[in-house]
């Protein structure tokens, strides 16, 4: 867009949405310059807070008319820069589209607007006997729209699957401004599964404005255990043995000594600080099967060399344990001024290997790394600690994170299990996928997003001969006024 037309766009947006639903003052917008991936920052030019799908449609049409990039944002909890406004432009923030429109227990679905915070739906369903299964650790803040964009996981994916397994349909505004519904409350709509494609597309294909989600029966009971190990190898052996025996826990989380120390300082749970690894194991389901399964799990942990297996069957104790796990990232503040969380995945039998590699990489770069894993899925979250005021530390942290992800690829894994590619992991796409794979992905991107105004600079590599991805435009455009910290890296 020619910069001189910007005031006209702003005036049009103001007229359509009202002053209360728009921010254009730099000081007010600066908190939207990044998400949980704080290494790259860029401020949007305008922030819109739509209240209805029609508002979103208006915004998209105006962005097309004025040739301005736009992108959606939920609560900004994503960790890979998925809602970084790379080129500035219009940021569509969904926090005011927050209605739970329908809860239908008989037909086991709910309809929510994208700004509904994940835990609000959990709370709205309390006492009904049903719940919405995906529960990312950030569920107290993250929105369901954001969960759809990144295909969020969480600690219970081992048994219950990720967001895409629980999304039945979406209403979306396409990049041409039309409103289209995909899927819905019935099974098997005829045709290729576009809902499955849109979930996890990181806001690069459409702007989702409504979501039909599957509701799941609450489990009748839980058995929660805390197994304490002298070595990470012993803990990962126990994981492999439990799953090898055909037991699929609802959650199987591992925390290493580094994270335990931070958690203990924060929550005083009584974790043994000399333990090398702790497994948080939760079984759920029908009461009738749980005690037997718990006894088998305890025996397998013992056989793998657990020092002790504690039970947290009392609901209060269980909640406290989960609070520790879900707020683990918050506790990192006690260890370091900044941190960067990685999100690699390996086949779960490769967990001992990857953990050894992380230890080596930590030593090589002289950075401290602590670990909290979704171990049952092989989804690792090494947390690299650094001080962002020290450029050398920032570089070491980034390099160490990169080398960990390369190690994940080397053992047949992936560079992201649940956080997405965003801007952070674009360089890895060419390592993970062949040119033909990326070419087909690029074509699909162009099919939905032909002018690349929606979420430019995300997910797919910019270089590499595909030629269609984001290119800064030669004409002076609004985004050039503040290229972002990315330029400095």
């Amino acid at each position, binding site marked *: 867009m020619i910069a001189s037309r910007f005031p006209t766009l702003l005036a049009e947006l103001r007229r359509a949405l009202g002053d209360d639903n728009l921010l254009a003052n730099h000081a007010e917008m600066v908190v939207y310059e990044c998400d949980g991936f704080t290494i790259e920052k860029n401020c949007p030019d305008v922030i819109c807070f739509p209240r209805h799908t029609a508002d979103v449609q208006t915004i998209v049409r105006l962005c097309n008319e004025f040739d301005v990039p736009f992108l959606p944002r939920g609560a900004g909890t994503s960790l890979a820069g998925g809602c970084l406004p790379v080129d500035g432009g219009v940021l569509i923030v969904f926090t005011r589209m927050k209605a739970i429109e329908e809860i*239908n227990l*008989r*037909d086991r679905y709910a309809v929510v607007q994208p700004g509904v915070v994940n835990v609000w739906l959990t709370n709205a369903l309390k006492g009904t006997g049903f719940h919405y299964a995906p529960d990312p650790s950030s569920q107290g803040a993250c929105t369901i729209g954001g969960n759809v964009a990144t295909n969020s*996981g969480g600690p219970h994916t*081992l048994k219950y699957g990720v967001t*895409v*397994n629980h999304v039945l349909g979406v209403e979306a505004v*396409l990049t041409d401004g039309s409103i*289209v*519904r995909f899927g819905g409350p*019935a*099974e*098997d*709509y*005829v*045709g*290729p*599964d*576009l809902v*499955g*494609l849109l979930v*996890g*597309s990181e806001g690069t294909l459409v702007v989702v404005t409504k979501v039909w989600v599957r509701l799941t029966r609450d489990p*009748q009971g839980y058995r929660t255990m805390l197994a304490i190990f002298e070595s990470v190898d012993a803990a990962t052996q126990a994981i*492999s043995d439990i799953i*090898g025996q*055909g*037991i*699929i826990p609802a959650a199987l989380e591992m925390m290493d000594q580094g994270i335990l120390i931070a958690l203990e300082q924060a929550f005083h749970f009584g974790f043994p600080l000399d333990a090398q690894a702790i497994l948080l194991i939760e079984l759920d*389901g*029908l009461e*009738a*099967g749980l005690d*037997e399964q718990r006894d088998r799990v305890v025996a397998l942990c013992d056989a793998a060399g657990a020092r002790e297996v504690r039970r947290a069957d009392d609901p209060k104790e269980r909640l406290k344990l989960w609070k520790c796990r879900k707020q683990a990232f918050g506790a990192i503040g006690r260890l370091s001024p900044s941190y960067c969380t990685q999100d690699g*995945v390996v*086949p*779960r039998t490769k967990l001992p290997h990857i953990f050894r590699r992380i230890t080596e990489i930590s030593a090589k770069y002289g950075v401290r790394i602590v670990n909290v894993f*979704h171990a049952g*899925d*092989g989804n690792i979250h090494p947390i690299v600690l650094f001080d962002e005021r020290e450029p050398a530390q920032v570089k070491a942290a980034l390099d160490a994170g990169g080398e960990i992800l390369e190690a994940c690829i080397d053992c047949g*894994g*992936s560079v*992201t*299990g*649940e*956080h*997405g*590619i965003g801007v952070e992991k674009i360089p*890895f*796409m060419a390592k993970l*996928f062949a040119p033909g*794979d*990326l*070419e*087909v*992905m690029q*074509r*699909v991107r162009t*099919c*939905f997003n032909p002018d690349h105004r929606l979420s430019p600079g995300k997910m797919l590599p910019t270089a590499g001969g595909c030629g269609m991805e984001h290119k800064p435009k030669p004409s002076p455009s609004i985004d050039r006024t503040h290229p972002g910290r990315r330029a400095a890296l």
Partner: protein
Amino acid sequence: MLAQASKLLPLSETCAPATQADLAAQVQACFSAGTPIYPLGGGTALHCAPIGKRQGCGIATTALNRLVDYPARDLTITVEAGMTVAALQQTLATENQFLPLDVPQAGDATVGGALAMNAAGPRRFGYGTIRDYVIGISAVDGRGTAFSAGGRVVKNVAGYDFCKLLVGSLGTLAVVTQVTFKVKPRPAAAAYLVHGLASLEQAESLAVAMAASQTTPVSVNLLMGAAWSEIAEFNLPGPPPAAYFVVGLEGTGAEVEWMLATLKNEWQTAGFPVSRTVGEPEACASLRQRLTEFGCDGGAGTAVKSKLPLVLKLTARPSSVVALVAEVRRLFPSASLLAHAGGGTVLARLDSELQAHELATPLLQVLHPLATRLGGQCTVWSSPFAGELTRSVCWGPARESDAMLKRVKQTFDPKGLLNPDRFIFG
């Protein structure tokens, strides 16, 4: 299979490449020449869509049938798309694992075909469908470009999820060559509970009771019609029931035992005492087989086998299933039905002596609009006269997402060569 395919489809030639590269080369040749391509798996579902007139090349995946990787402890398996579903299940059984999908004619049906058809059966209520199990995929698009998506780990959000996109695409976007699944441990025990319903109206009360049940069934079925009359397990004392309500349970021994006792109590309280419990492993396997094969050749029991079956598939919100069943029976009094009362899918097996023109009117005027109103769709799932059906009779009215689907189709198959005139794209 190729002989059977040649009878049904306008094939001028067929081939069965043994590698993905050979298959891609074949597609590239067709792309250059503008020759239509008919992807072929086990040939078990060829009659499930209209048949076009354009002569083309049948590309079979049956020589792509190798086991690529089975790290059993990771609960994943990678196979080529031409492996039969039965061979896949046999491999998994050696590690006491399974892919929890009810695929009809599994001895012939291929993994790629099951994916393209989105094959599913009654146990989808408890286990989900193929989209919930595919974690990696390789395929060749309509230009002959080989591509992959996903990977071999159970949790992975890198790149667009073409694993899901190709589910239900009926071979119109790409020819699937390799699939990685996550799999499950086999349940130790299984059982079915049967209630003979005096009237269809009672079915809704029982369905409501099931929706609130403490138990976690893997399938909730409402069965009606002659197809079920010769099953020994359904031979109940007293007058023949109007319909059967059949619930499938799987889990550990203790879980199944508890669910049986609990459901018996719940049904008794709701006024529908259990008529029969099916617990013997052989009887359970046999009943599961009958439920799975309902829409196929084997589904009508020993009766009529001479013609391909005429089967409609209707979907709606689960609470509308009984209404849908009643309407199908009003239009086609001799229809046999299998309704997934928990999920909302109804398979209706009609008299295969019906002619194509006798089917079109009730579909276009009644069932398509009704299913749409109830939140779902009505399609012809299988017919002996696929060549005479129009796309609108077969697949129902257009949906608002169809325009976007067509653009996606154009992206994968710019010349419209993959399964032309068979699916919603034309």
